[in-house]
């Protein structure tokens, strides 16, 4: 055992004192991250992904707005269903959709609340309180024409409040369902027959979208000009600062914690564009409120989501160094010389495992420390479960790498071949781990195949511990660790035999 310790110390000193190895440790990761960022940061990659999303409509009454068939949720569902970007699953309740997300059937789900369609219909309409403050008159023109014409417009309802005190209505507008108040200024009708401007003022609720105010104003002006040919119509505006705007129809998008922020942004962006496009097909400028929610707990930030990949990459470089050290020891005859001592193969391997474990733990916890400085905010079951979960995962991964190095050393034979050739092994193991891009969206079959990669098992374990906040006795976590342990046993069995042969 003490000889293993000495071998471990020698390995660690070789790591630390070799400047080339240190350069390799720092330089290659930077190059690799840049490469990954360049390849996977491009939008063309994201567009080829198909997301599985859930569709939950809580509407309990039949659709009845004949004027706006595009407000029908069934139609919205059908359009989503026909899109290449989505596979849409219909669920009748939030609970059902949540379960499907937990079962990895969908990555998130849209929830349309009860009254959504009715809210759309109301949002499409403009209710105006009409106050006639004009005391003048004209021989031919009549203010009633304007009032009637405005009221006859589709999606406009005009309520005459001329018999009430305007200021009282204005200060109590929140008690009404008027979107705004139209005040007809004095001499409006009189000026329609001369060059003077006929003026009116539109008072709108605070927070009304600019676009909507402009549409309403131009509609009112257009109607007035139509009624009074040759007139000079002017319309002013006033923001009723103490009035609350109506809540726009709300759509909630729920995601599991394990969905990356990039995916969340892509999905939310497409959903917003599509739904807004559908309901505003006949221009009505309805603003929708999109809320991104977490299906359970808070959502992790992009840095936290990427952390399993970063840890994986850090540890993965150790495979390269171990291979170079083993092949170099063989090349320089160290193994031959050691074979004249009383050192056993078991002690050499144990020493390598120990050195790799220390390096992996050092890299992992140092890396996590740095990431904390930059905003890492993991979701762990509790601190103990978090530390134990990370430690067990990194322990198993480190042992997998050591056993893999024992297998690969006889394949590459020389340090030069090992240093370069190992990337043929490392790159696919990293790329298909799911730590750098979402492999689950490529295809179901592919996801099932890559699940059996040791790196994928490691990323999934890290996600369970650091993102999903699962305790260490969770079945999925135990299964991943169990599979990883089987790999270690098989790799060590084969690797030890190959290494013994190689050493001779």
């Amino acid at each position, binding site marked *: 055992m*003490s000889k293993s310790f*000495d071998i471990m110390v*020698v390995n660690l*000193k070789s790591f630390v004192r070799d400047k080339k190895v240190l350069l390799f440790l720092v330089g290659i990761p930077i190059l690799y991250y840049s490469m990954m960022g360049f390849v996977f940061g491009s939008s063309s990659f994201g567009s080829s992904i198909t997301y599985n999303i859930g569709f939950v409509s809580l509407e309990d009454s039949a659709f009845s707005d004949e004027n706006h068939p595009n407000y029908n949720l069934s139609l919205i569902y059908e359009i989503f269903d026909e899109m290449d970007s989505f596979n849409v699953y219909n669920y009748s309740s939030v609970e059902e959709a949540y379960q499907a997300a937990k079962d990895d059937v969908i990555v998130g789900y849209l929830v349309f609340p009860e009254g959504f369609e009715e809210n759309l219909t109301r949002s499409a309409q403009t209710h105006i309180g009409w106050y006639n403050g004009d005391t003048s008159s004209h021989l031919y023109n009549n203010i009633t024409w304007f009032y009637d014409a405005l009221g006859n417009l589709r999606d406009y309802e005009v309520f005459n409040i001329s018999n009430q005190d305007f200021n009282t209505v204005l200060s109590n507008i929140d008690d009404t369902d008027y979107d705004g108040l139209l005040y007809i200024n004095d001499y409006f009708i009189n000026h329609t027959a001369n060059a003077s401007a006929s003026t009116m003022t539109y008072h709108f609720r605070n927070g009304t979208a600019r676009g909507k105010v402009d549409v309403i104003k131009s509609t009112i002006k257009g109607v007035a000009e139509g009624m009074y040919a040759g007139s000079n119509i002017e319309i002013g505006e006033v923001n009723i600062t103490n009035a609350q705007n109506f809540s726009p129809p709300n759509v909630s998008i729920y995601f599991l914690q394990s969905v990356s922020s990039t995916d969340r942004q892509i999905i939310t962006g497409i959903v917003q564009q599509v739904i807004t496009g559908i309901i505003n097909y006949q221009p009505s400028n309805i603003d929708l409120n999109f809320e991104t929610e977490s299906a359970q707990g808070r959502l992790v930030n992009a840095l936290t989501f990427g952390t399993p990949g970063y840890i994986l990459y850090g540890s993965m470089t150790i495979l390269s160094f171990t291979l170079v050290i083993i092949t170099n020891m063989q090349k320089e005859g160290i193994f031959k010389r050691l074979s004249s*001592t*009383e050192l056993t193969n078991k002690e050499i391997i144990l020493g390598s495992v120990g050195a790799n474990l220390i390096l992996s733990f050092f890299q992992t916890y140092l890396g996590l420390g740095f990431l904390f400085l930059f905003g890492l905010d993991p979701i762990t079951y509790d601190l103990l479960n978090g530390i134990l979960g990370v430690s067990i995962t990194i322990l198993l991964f480190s042992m997998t790498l050591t056993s893999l190095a024992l297998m690969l050393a006889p394949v590459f034979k020389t340090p030069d071949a090992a240093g370069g050739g190992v990337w043929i092994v490392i790159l696919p193991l990293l790329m298909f781990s799911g730590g750098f891009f979402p492999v689950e969206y490529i295809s179901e079959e592919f996801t099932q195949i890559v699940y059996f990669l040791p790196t994928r098992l490691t990323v999934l374990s890290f996600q369970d511990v650091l993102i999903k906040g699962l305790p260490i006795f969770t079945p999925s976590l135990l299964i991943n660790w169990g599979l990883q342990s089987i790999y270690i046993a098989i790799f060590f069995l084969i690797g030890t035999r190959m290494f013994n042969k190689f050493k001779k």
Partner: protein
Amino acid sequence: MTTESKFIKRIEKNDFAIRVEDLKKYFEDVKAVDGISFEIKKGECFSFLGPNGAGKTTTINILACYMKPTSGVATLFDYDVVKEPKKVKQHIGICPQENIFFEELTVFENVMFFGKMYNVDKKELLERANDLILKVGLEEKRKTRADKLSGGMKRRLNLIIGLVHDPDVLFLDEPTAGLDPQTRRLIWDYIRELKTRKKTIFLTTHYMDEADELSDRIGIIDYGKIIAMDTPDGLKATIGKGDMLEIKLEGKKEEIIQKTEEIKNLDFVLSSYYIEEDLITRIMAMDGIGKIGKIIKFFTSVDLNVVDVNVKANSLENVFIELTGRSLRN
């Protein structure tokens, strides 16, 4: 009875540290070692002298349990190197031909590391490491990384690593190859000191002077076979008191070969032969230096021009050349 005391008894009982009988090692078509037999007494310094590829290192590799022989028997204190490698390894130290140690470790760290691998007691190891480093003149470099040492210093480190566990038998494979004269002398002195401590030394070298200076007995090996084995003086005596002359002649090749044969008829010429690859005629003659004039006259009388004459006094190299027909450095 402890393992150590059993071993001491075994040593006392045996006069020979190493016994080799009809040892063979074949690599496909190459006969690296081809049926050699020899014995080395306890405390003896035995050298294997031979050119590169003669089979010296292969023999050491078999005796040090690095490789198994194709056939034959080799024992170290009656422990069979094939059947009892663990016991053999406990009593041998090796200084391989190449410098083998951890480049990133310091001199002291390397010696300590290998000592630990040999299970040397910690306190004893510390004393021994300091002593060895001092003796080979590496004291000032004890904290220097091995990769920063000069070639000579590396050889010295390579040597003491093989000695850190105070082995009974020491295999030194070309210990001074490529070194400057000063470092060679330093290593020779240390080997002499080991001899005074009754260590059994198996030395391989292709330096004649090294074998001559250090060895009690020398085995000359070529093409995997031992072609002569004796004390340095005994070997020199096998070729008598003659001197070796190497003569470069100018003329037709057939003529040169014929006259090289004919010169054997002169009464002071012991042997002569033409070496085609070097284009020289080699003559072993009694009082060769004094007879140079007669020899030149013989060749010029038959219309062959003597271009160059080189005289070599009686030495191990002459022995080797006489036995193998070629120079050691070939």
